[in-house]
């Protein structure tokens, strides 16, 4: 299958949460609230995903007023990946509604 591979749920929600700069714990809380407690992410899972996303340049670290807190935000590349994923999901839903 060509194009960008499908995002995992963890990566999808982290990217979605980082429209504005946010730090680790706030990302976890945001995802929990967004999914009505369905996804409660572990600290290790979040850390692993954040470091992988920084490496892929989907997110970047931004300066924070509080030096003890690292803030992350979605990059242009991250925006494109998320947009592509949303289109893919829309196609899935549309196909499901038409053919189910």
């Amino acid at each position: 299958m060509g194009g960008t591979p499908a995002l995992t749920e963890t990566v999808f929600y982290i990217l979605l949460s980082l429209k504005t700069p946010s730090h680790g714990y706030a990302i976890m809380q945001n995802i929990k609230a967004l999914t009505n407690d369905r996804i409660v992410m572990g600290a290790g899972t979040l850390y692993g995903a954040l470091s992988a996303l920084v490496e892929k340049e989907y997110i970047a670290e931004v300066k924070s007023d509080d030096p003890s807190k690292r803030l992350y935000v979605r990059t242009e590349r991250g925006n494109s990946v998320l947009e592509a994923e949303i289109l893919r999901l829309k196609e899935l839903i549309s196909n499901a509604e038409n053919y189910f």
Partner: protein
Amino acid sequence: MKEQKTFLKAFLDRNKELEYINKMHSMGWKLTSVRFAFYSFEKNTPNKYKTVFYYAERIYQSTFIQTVTECGYEIVHHTNEGKYILYYLNIASDSQVADFLTDSESKRNHIERGLSSIKRDALVSLITAAIAITPGAVTVPSIIKLLKYEPEKFYEIISNDILGAVLFLFFTIFGIVAAVISINLFRMYCRNKARRKELISEMKIYE
């Protein structure tokens, strides 16, 4: 100041080590530091904490420390293992935070990091065993022959070079111990590999 205790313990298996630390927590001893084989604990309320371990990437060390600290974990540095750092993480037992790893991919990565650590240790102990055992293995047939046919000559050699004999014995025993350790590490490696296989097949269901 809280009462402190330090114990000398040796573990090959991380899961056994974790079992020991969590048993100490249940008895009211909270892990405060690990240096080589010395485990330090401080007096605390029984069952107040539990511990998990994690191999964090050295280059993202500060991201790791910040993320887990914000979630309420207390970090205990264990060992530096190449590009990873092994941390032990204490968390209050009544904490509302989720398990440390909540997705199959992270669990698989964690097992893979553990696997490469076990593999490295197993290879080191195997090489050590080979180096230590070789002189013994080469000379054992001659020693047996000597003991069988000329025991007086054997005792004469031993009494003339008691230091050499002790060293010979020491290296042979050391080599056997290293061989036993490497066999156990390889067994652990196989067990963890099987667990990784299970996780990969779990992941495939969702692909």
